[in-house]
């Protein structure tokens, strides 16, 4: 639904980078790997949190 606050595996805080990652790599056309490197999300456990995430608030909102 919302980006998890921390990485499930290592506990590193990843939520803070979501907005920037989303605007640059999802909506923009930058390379996700390069954006994650720049944001300092270096372990692959944390990287998958960002790469595999889908925001669902907009999908759920009408049924509230």
């Amino acid at each position: 639904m919302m980006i998890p606050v921390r990485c499930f595996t290592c506990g590193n805080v990843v939520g803070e980078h979501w907005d920037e990652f989303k605007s640059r790599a999802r909506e923009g056309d930058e390379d996700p790997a390069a954006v994650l490197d720049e944001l300092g999300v270096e372990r692959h456990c944390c990287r998958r949190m960002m790469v595999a995430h889908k925001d669902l608030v907009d999908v759920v909102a009408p049924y509230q």
Partner: protein
Amino acid sequence: MAEDFEVEFIEREDRKARFLVRGMTPAVANGIRRAMVADVPTFSVDTVRFVENSSVMFDEMIGLRLGLVPLTTPLDDFEEGDVVTLALDVEGPATAYSGDIESSDELVQPAELNVPIIELKEGQRLQLEADAVLGSGKAHAKHQGGVAVGYRHLHRVEVVGDANEFEEQEPNILRGVIEEAAAEHAADESAEDGALVPTSEFDNDLTKRYPGKDVEVHDVPGAFVFHVETDGSFTVEELVRRAVESISDRAAELEEKVAI
């Protein structure tokens, strides 16, 4: 222990550090690692009182997300069990961020200001009051100050001969930190014997460091390379100091209790 440890930093930032400790047994190294994870307390939201929550998430889910937000923890000024009250009030359309959390104590603030808590649509509102408690990682993982805390042996790489020159060399992957022992064979010309080199400098591949050579890797006895990160509650230095302190306090207590 009669001997002192010898500590040398390899990388040092506020929230992330790598350092070498010599003169340590594996038991002590692991004790310090465990103390960093489970014994150094941090503030974390523990109880939430919702005034209004018309967002798409249930109270419990928001409570969980609040609990995971790291809060700055000045350990000199607080004791385990202390409570600080936080408040959050955001009206949609907007996203509630951790930076919107207001704290009753200026020493205890969200360490990250940009963590989205919940996206609010038109007419939705999130208003709550939360109690942050200073607790240790033993009680709940949200109180862990250390993130991805670990250690490895320091490696010593020795060149034992030449590789077969007619065969393609297979990558020889090694992670951690090496103590340079064959500087004359290293690809890097500024190499010096005894220098500490993180393997990431040569893509974790020993064949890039010592091209055309056969190498043997040995652990250096009693030398451990710690990799420590914190979630932002305090600096790495504070975390390590507190962890060591907690071990030495407990050791002193044990000594006293078993004394005749």
